[in-house]
C-alpha cells in the first residue's frame, strides 16, 4: 500500500465546491481516499493546492508537430537541456521534443493533455509520439471535418452509416472524440480554394459546412460520445470571421444532450473573433463572441491566447497556413491527406509593435474576461499556435491582475486602445476561477470523471504551488503568481511525487484514453463502402489501416451507450 497525506494545504477544488479551504488530502494507491493509516506526510503549510492541470487542446504529437520540429531546427536549438540521471535530453521552445513536452507540462502542474488533431491515416504516428511523451495522461481527437465518407453520408442523408463510420474510425484510430477543422473548406483547399460561409458548397460533394456540423453533432449524441464536437471554425484567421463563428455557435443552441454536456465546443476562439474587412480595418469582436457565449449555454470555448514572441503555427486547416505564409514570407509546409484531412505548418513572430498582433493578444484576454461562466471558457494557447505551452503562467497572471494588464498595454502598439476593449475591462480572475479554466472545465467537458477534481475516488493528480493564497494579493503580486505557476512546488501524478521544487524527480508514463462506441451490426452498415473506397481510392489497404493497442501506453477504453433505432451498444 502506497499512502500519502497532503496536510494543511489551501485547497481549491471547484467540481466539489471546495474553495479556499484548509484541508488534508489523502491518497492511496494512486487514488484520492477519505483516510489513510500509515502515510508519508507532506505538510504544505498554507500553500495553494489544485487538482492536476488538464489541457484540453494542445498540439503535442503527430505528423504536424513533427513537421514543425523538422523545418525548425532553429527552434529546436532554443531550449536544449541535457539529460540527467532520470530525464532524457530536451529540445525546442515552440516545437519541443516529446520528452520536453512531458517534463514542461509536469513542471507547471499539468497531468492530462489532449492532442486535438489526429489524421486517421497517420494515427499510428500520433500514438507513437503520445506513447513516448512521459509524465502525462493523454487523449487525442480524430479529424472528421472534410472526410470523404463523412461528406458522402451527409450528402445522402445516411445518418446511421455516418454514426457507424465515426464509431469504426474512433476505434481504428484509438481516438477520443470528433474534431472538425474548417468543415468542408479543407476539401476545397485541395483544389487551392476555401469556403466563405456555412452555406457554401464543398466542390463536388454538394454538402455545406452547416450540414456537416449538424450531422456530426447528431452523431456525437447518437454515439453518446463523452466530448462535444470540437470545432475549428471556417474562415479561421481571416478578418471579419466573427460572424461565421457566431453562426456556428448558434447551431448548438437548444440542442439538449443525454449526458448533460454541451453539444459543441469552439476551439481557440481568439482566432475566430476577428472584425474588420481586411488587415487594415482589423479589430476585436471578442465582445460579440462573449455575448453569444453568455446567452448560449450549449457551447464552450477555449481561448487560444496569443503571446508575443516567436512560435510555430500548425493546423489541419491548410488554407490558413498558406495565407499566413503569404503574409510573412516564412517557410511553409503543407500536407494534404487522401480522403481525410490536410494540414499546414509555418513559423510566425507575434510582435507587440504590430497592430494586428496586439489586437489578437487583446482578443484572447477579452474573451476570457467577458465570458461570465468560467466553465464555458478553458485556458489554452492552442499550443504552439498562439504561444508555446510554457507561457501559461504569464497568462494566468494577466487574468488575475488588471494592474499587470495596464502595465503591458503601455508597452504595446496603441492599436490596443483603439480597436480593442481590453483597457476598459476591470475583471480579475480569482484562484477558484483559475482552477476552473485550467482544470475543472476541461475535465468536465471531456467527462473525465477521475480528473480535474480531488473528490474521493479521483485519480491522485494534484498540484501544489509555492504560493500562499491567503497571504498575497494576485492583483498586485502578479510576478509571484507567474513564478509560482511556472514551477510547481509539487506535482503529484497518480499518487507519486513527480515534480519537487520545479524539478522532475520521478519519470512516469501515463494512460491513453480512447472511446469505444461500437453498436450492433455497425460494421455491416459500412463494410461495403469501406471495401469499395479503400480498394479504389486509398493507397493503404483496409487491413493495414489504423492503430492497435501495441502503440498505446496503458490503454484506457471508455465505453459509451450508443442507440440507433433498435441497435444498441455492442456487448
Amino acid at each position, binding site marked *: 500500500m502506497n499512502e500519502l497525506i497532503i496536510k494543511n494545504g489551501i485547497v481549491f477544488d471547484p467540481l466539489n465546491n471546495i474553495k479556499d479551504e484548509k484541508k488534508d488530502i489523502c491518497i492511496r494507491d494512486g487514488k484520492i481516499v477519505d483516510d489513510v493509516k500509515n502515510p508519508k506526510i507532506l505538510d504544505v503549510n498554507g500553500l495553494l493546492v489544485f487538482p492536476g492541470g488538464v489541457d484540453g487542446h494542445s498540439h503535442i504529437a503527430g505528423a504536424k508537430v513533427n513537421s514543425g520540429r*523538422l523545418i525548425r*531546427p532553429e527552434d529546436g536549438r532554443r531550449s536544449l537541456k541535457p539529460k540527467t540521471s532520470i530525464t532524457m535530453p530536451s529540445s525546442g521552445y515552440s516545437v519541443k521534443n516529446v520528452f520536453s513536452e512531458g517534463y514542461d507540462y509536469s513542471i507547471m502542474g499539468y497531468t492530462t493533455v489532449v492532442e486535438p488533431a489526429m489524421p486517421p491515416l497517420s494515427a499510428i504516428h500520433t500514438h507513437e509520439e503520445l506513447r513516448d511523451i512521459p509524465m502525462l495522461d493523454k487523449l487525442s481527437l480524430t479529424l472528421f471535418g472534410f472526410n470523404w465518407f463523412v461528406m458522402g453520408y451527409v450528402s445522402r442523408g445516411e445518418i446511421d452509416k455516418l454514426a457507424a463510420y465515426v464509431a469504426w474510425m474512433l476505434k481504428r484510430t484509438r481516438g477520443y472524440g470528433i474534431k472538425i477543422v474548417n468543415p468542408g473548406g479543407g476539401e476545397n483547399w485541395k483544389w487551392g480554394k476555401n469556403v466563405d460561409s456555412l452555406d457554401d458548397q464543398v466542390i463536388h460533394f454538394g454538402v455545406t459546412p452547416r450540414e456537416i456540423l449538424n450531422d456530426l453533432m447528431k452523431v456525437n449524441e447518437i454515439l453518446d460520445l463523452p466530448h462535444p464536437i470540437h470545432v475549428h471554425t471556417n474562415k479561421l484567421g481571416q478578418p471579419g470571421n466573427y460572424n461565421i463563428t457566431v453562426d456556428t455557435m448558434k447551431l448548438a443552441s437548444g440542442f439538449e444532450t443525454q449526458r448533460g454536456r454541451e453539444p459543441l465546443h469552439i476551439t481557440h476562439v481568439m482566432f475566430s473573433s476577428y472584425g474588420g474587412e481586411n488587415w487594415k480595418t482589423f479589430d476585436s469582436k471578442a465582445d460579440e463572441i462573449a455575448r453569444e457565449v453568455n446567452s448560449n449555454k450549449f457551447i464552450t470555448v477555449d481561448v487560444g491566447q496569443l503571446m508575443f514572441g516567436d512560435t510555430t503555427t500548425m493546423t489541419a486547416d491548410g488554407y490558413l497556413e498558406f495565407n499566413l505564409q503569404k503574409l510573412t514570407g516564412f517557410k511553409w509546409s503543407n500536407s494534404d491527406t487522401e480522403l481525410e484531412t490536410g494540414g499546414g505548418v509555418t513559423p510566425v513572430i507575434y510582435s507587440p509593435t504590430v497592430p494586428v498582433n496586439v489586437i489578437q493578444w487583446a482578443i484572447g484576454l477579452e474573451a476570457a474576461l467577458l465570458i461570465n461562466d468560467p466553465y464555458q471558457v478553458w485556458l489554452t494557447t492552442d499550443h504552439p499556435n498562439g504561444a508555446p505551452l510554457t507561457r501559461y503562467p504569464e497568462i494566468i497572471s494577466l487574468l488575475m491582475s488588471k494592474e499587470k494588464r495596464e502595465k503591458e498595454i503601455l508597452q504595446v502598439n496603441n492599436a490596443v486602445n483603439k480597436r480593442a476593449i481590453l483597457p476598459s475591462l476591470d475583471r480579475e480572475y480569482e484562484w477558484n476561477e483559475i482552477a476552473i479554466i485550467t482544470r475543472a472545465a476541461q475535465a468536465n467537458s471531456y467527462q473525465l470523471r477521475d480528473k480535474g477534481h480531488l473528490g474521493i475516488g479521483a485519480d491522485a493528480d494534484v498540484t501544489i504551488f509555492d504560493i500562499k493564497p491567503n497571504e498575497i494579493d494576485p492583483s498586485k503580486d502578479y510576478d509571484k503568481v507567474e513564478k509560482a505557476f511556472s514551477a510547481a512546488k509539487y506535482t503529484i501524478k497518480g499518487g507519486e511525487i513527480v515534480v519537487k521544487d520545479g524539478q522532475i524527480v520521478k519519470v512516469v508514463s501515463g494512460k491513453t484514453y480512447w472511446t469505444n462506441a461500437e453498436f450492433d451490426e455497425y460494421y455491416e452498415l459500412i463494410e461495403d463502402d469501406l471495401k469499395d473506397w479503400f480498394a479504389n481510392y486509398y493507397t493503404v489497404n483496409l487491413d493495414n489501416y489504423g492503430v492497435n493497442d501495441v502503440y498505446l501506453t496503458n490503454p484506457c477504453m471508455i465505453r459509451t451507450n450508443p442507440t440507433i433505432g433498435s441497435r444498441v451498444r455492442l456487448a
Partner: protein
Amino acid sequence: MIIKNVVCPFCGSLCDDLTVEVEGNEIKNVDNTCKLGYNKIVGYSHGRIEAPLIRDKEGLKEISYDKAIDEAAKILCNARRPLMYGWSSTTCEAIEKGIELAIKIGSLIDQTATVCHGPTTLGIQEEGKPSCTLGEVKNRADLVIYWGCNPFHAHPRHMGRYSTFTKGYFTNKGRKDRKIIVVDVRESDTSKVADIFLKIEPGSDYKIINALTSIIIGNGDILPEEIGGISKDRLEYIAGEMVNANFGIVFFGLGVTMTGVKDKNIGSLSRLVKELNRNTKFSLMPMRGHYNVSGAGNVFTWLTGFPYAIDLSRGYAYYNPGETTANDVLARKEVDAILVVASDPVAHFVNPSIRRLAEIPLIAIEPYTSATTELADLIIPVAISGIEADGTAYRMDEIPIRVKKFIDSKFKSDLEILTDIINRIDRYE
C-alpha cells in the same frame, strides 16, 4: 498458407498489397511485387550470416550471441567518440531503441539520409515542404513531374500504384487524365513514358527551377534565351502547363539532391511550388529510397528534435550538418568506434570515411555479407524486419504502416539486439 496485404520492406513506396505464400517456415511465392521486392522477400534466406562473428588476427571467428553482446557493450563503453549509423532498413521501434542507446552512451548518431536526401532536409528547413500523401496524387494529379529520378527502376510500382497509370477519384481515366513531364540529364525508361521530356545539362537544375519561378511570378523578361540547354520558349511552355494544372506534383530524386548546389536546389524547388500555389494546387515529394528512411527521420525528430546528424556527447542533442554528419566526423578521424545497423556505409561513403572505418572497431548488426561486414570487427546476425520481425515503417509520404512478420527466425530482431546491448551496458555501470 497464403498471407495477404503484406507490406514490402524494400523501397520508400512501401506497397502494402503483396500476397505471400508460406509453407512450413519457407516462402514459396510472392505476388503483386516488383523484381526488387520479389528478390528481397523470396531470397531472404540466401547468403545469411549464420552466427555472431568476431575478428582476430586470423580473421573472423564464431562466438556465442551472449559473448557478442558483451563485446559490443565493451566496444561502445570504451569508445570516447562512438558513432551509431544506419537505421533506414529497420523498424521505428528499433530506431527508438537505438536513440535510447545513443543518449545513454553519449554517442553521435546519423542515418542514411546523410548521403541521400539530407540536402532535401536542409532545403526544407529553409523553405518548408508543401506536400501531400500519395493518395492525393492518385486521386487528383493531372500533372506529374519526375525530376532527377527514375521510378521505373528505383521505385518500380510507384507509377502504377500511385502516380501515373493508376486511376483515382478525379482521375478515372488513369494515365489519360494526367500529363507526365520528366526532367533529367539523360533519357531513362521513365522519360520514355513521359509526354514531355526535358533533357537538361548536368548541374543546371538550380538555374532551371529558378527560371520557372521567374516566369511564374512574371519576371520572365530577365531570362536569357537559353537556360541549362533548354530554350526560354520551352520553359515558358512548361511554366504554363504548371500554372494551368488543377493539381500538380513534383517527385524528385538524388539527381536533384546530390548534384550542383544540392540543398539550394530543394529550397528553390519548394519556393517554386509555393509560388504555384498562388495560382493552383501544387506539391512536391522526395522519392525516398529505403523503405523506412522516412521513419528514421521522423523518429530522430520526435525524440531529439532533429532529423539526422546528431551529437549526443554533450548530454543534449547537438545538430550541425557538415560538422556532425557521419562522413565529416569519420573523415576528421574523430570517431573511434562505430555501430552500424541496417545499412552498408562502406559501400556508400567517401574514401576518407571508409579509411577511418577500417581503422576503428566496427560493429555490424547485419543479416548478410556486405562491404561493411568485410571491414567489421564484430558481426551480429539479425532477423530481417518486414519478413522475420514486425514493427512500424514510414512510406515516402510520411504515412506509417505496420510491417509484418510472416517467417519465424532463429535470429533476434534489431530491437531485441539493441535492447540486449543496453541491458548489458546497464550491468557494467
